[in-house]
């Protein structure tokens, strides 16, 4: 605590005794609030675990690899919840989003730090930031009304007729049973790619800029071209920050709900084809939670617990990478 000497004529309230009390109180109040914030986190985890206990006990580990989600037992099919199709869809859609989004983000970051004329830099980075400001429901609307028809009529048939015949990957580009209708993993992945671009490119840019000029200049002075100097000096130096950026983007992709639910086709099954409809954990919870009776709600909460665990791991890894890379990720979406 502060014990600076009190000057003559300073207000009585500044006398050490009261000052210490006020300061203590202040520290306690703000500290208590911080404890609340920490407590919120603990609360989320505790409630999820407690509320999903019925299904955890009922299905145990089998929940993770079960493929059927049947809340209405009949004489023909028992009551069983299995999370695999949702987990599969979440990971697949996020992977597509990363595969498409990361190169684009790196290219954007590279352009904005190395290649763009100074005048353009501001407006261009501003424009990329705009991508982050668009709410996900608008992405979903755009996806459903504009992207889905394009995928259905142009992109998917094209990919299916070309890559669908290449030996090893033919299964991924096979025409699904319901035909090319645009609703599926690939469309959801494309939208996710667009949505993660601002996050990944912004932090990657900071990582690139954190590289000391001397590194780049050293490469250039040895006769490297622009690209070579970037490759030799910037990339290795910024590697950790870039990895952190990618992981943060992945965390966002995994949790995205509304843009995915409008374009993914809402089918609880595992399909090899990228064009086939499926579901993700977040989308399935959003669709089913309203009508689920108590036991199914517990199952959906268990799905939420899995999603939380996955996104926690991803976020923790991301934050560690970003911090060690010496960057701040302030107020990241």
């Amino acid at each position: 605590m502060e014990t600076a000497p009190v000057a003559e004529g300073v207000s009585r309230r500044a006398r050490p005794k009261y000052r210490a009390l006020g300061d203590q109180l202040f520290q306690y109040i703000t500290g208590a609030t911080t404890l609340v914030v920490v407590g919120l986190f603990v609360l989320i985890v505790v409630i999820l675990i407690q509320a999903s206990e019925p299904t955890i006990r009922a299905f145990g580990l089998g929940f993770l690899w079960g493929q059927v989600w049947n809340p209405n037992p009949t004489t023909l099919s028992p009551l069983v919840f299995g999370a695999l199709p949702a987990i599969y869809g979440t990971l697949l859609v996020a992977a597509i989003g990363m595969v498409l989004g990361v190169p684009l983000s790196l290219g954007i970051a590279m352009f904005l730090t190395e290649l763009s004329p100074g005048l353009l830099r501001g407006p261009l980075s501003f424009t990329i930031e705009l991508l982050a400001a668009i709410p996900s429901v608008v992405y979903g609307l755009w996806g459903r009304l504009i992207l889905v028809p394009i995928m259905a009529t142009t992109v998917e048939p094209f990919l299916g007729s070309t890559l669908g015949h290449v030996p090893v990957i033919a299964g991924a580009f096979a025409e699904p049973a319901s035909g090319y209708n645009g609703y599926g993993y690939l469309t959801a992945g494309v939208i996710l790619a667009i949505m993660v671009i601002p996050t990944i490119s912004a932090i990657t840019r900071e990582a690139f800029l954190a590289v000391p000029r001397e590194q780049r200049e050293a490469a250039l002075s040895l006769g490297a071209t622009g690209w070579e100097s970037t490759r030799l000096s910037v990339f290795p130096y910024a590697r950790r920050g870039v990895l952190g950026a990618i992981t943060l983007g992945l965390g966002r992709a995994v949790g995205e709900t509304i843009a995915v639910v409008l374009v993914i086709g809402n089918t609880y099954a595992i399909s090899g084809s990228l064009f086939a409809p499926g579901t993700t954990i977040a989308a399935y919870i959003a669709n089913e939670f309203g009508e689920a009776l108590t036991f199914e709600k517990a199952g959906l909460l268990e799905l939420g617990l899995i999603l939380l665990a996955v996104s926690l791991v991803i976020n923790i890894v991301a934050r560690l990478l970003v911090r060690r890379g010496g960057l701040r990720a302030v107020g990241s979406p």
Partner: protein
Amino acid sequence: MKFDRDFRRKLVNYAMSAAALACVLIAILPLGDILYTSVLNGAKVLSVPFFTQNGPIPCNPKFQSGCAFGGIGNSIQGTVLLILLSAAIAIPIGILCGIYLAEFGNNRFGDSARFLADVLTGVPSIVIAVVIFALFYLASQQGIISSNYVLSVLSASVALSLIMIPVVARTCEEALRAVPISTREAGLALGLPRYRVVSRVVLSTARSGVITGALLAVARAAGETAPLIILNAGNMFSFQPSQGLHQTTASLTYSIYEWIQSPYPNWQADAWGATLVLVILMLGISVGARLALRQRYGGPGH
């Protein structure tokens, strides 16, 4: 022209530059398309009644006469109410937490709290939504609150505030940390107690940073839909303040979500209008806040 190694290297250099430029253009393309279609379709329905009337009754002009076109009056009300309620909860808590992290938080507890706050920003909003549902439901079963509040604008606001708190806390902390230490020392040298230094001197100096951080958080909450699907799934009527917070309300994001899945032409047209309004609102808040933050903290290019 010799196709020697130097030429190849130059070629690769140009190719990479072109590829990077292409990446930028590819990314801007969907943005441009979204803005273009929003403006094109949304502008058709913008009018004064659009902003004041409540959402439309399902109606097809082919079969029914006098189809009310309706508007987003109650949706705007609902969104504003959600923002006000969630900000009222999240901003005080977030600022106090940010103050602690900035002023007293250089210890193990502060480090873990900071880390957890960062991690909290990445929790999917659907998870927070179902957790809040479970919380309110359990509370109503125990008789702590009336079951009217489980699906209500109040529970949705609590969920949104959970999303906002870590964002406000971290941006507030960064804003406070950016105040030079000499300012603090000046205050202390004048004999001000610590809490006055922080609340009167540091906070007001960092005021704009804190406010822009809060605006960012508000923008994020305003754009959320998942918590609303679970907790506050719309209302055809406008919010009646006299009846309390157990009502559900319409909201801009939920209305868009609802209307876009319908076959009614008046609903779909209204969805575009609501999209245009929402996009303008979000762009305004988010970009303004980010620009101000960037200039303050010297982001890329500084």
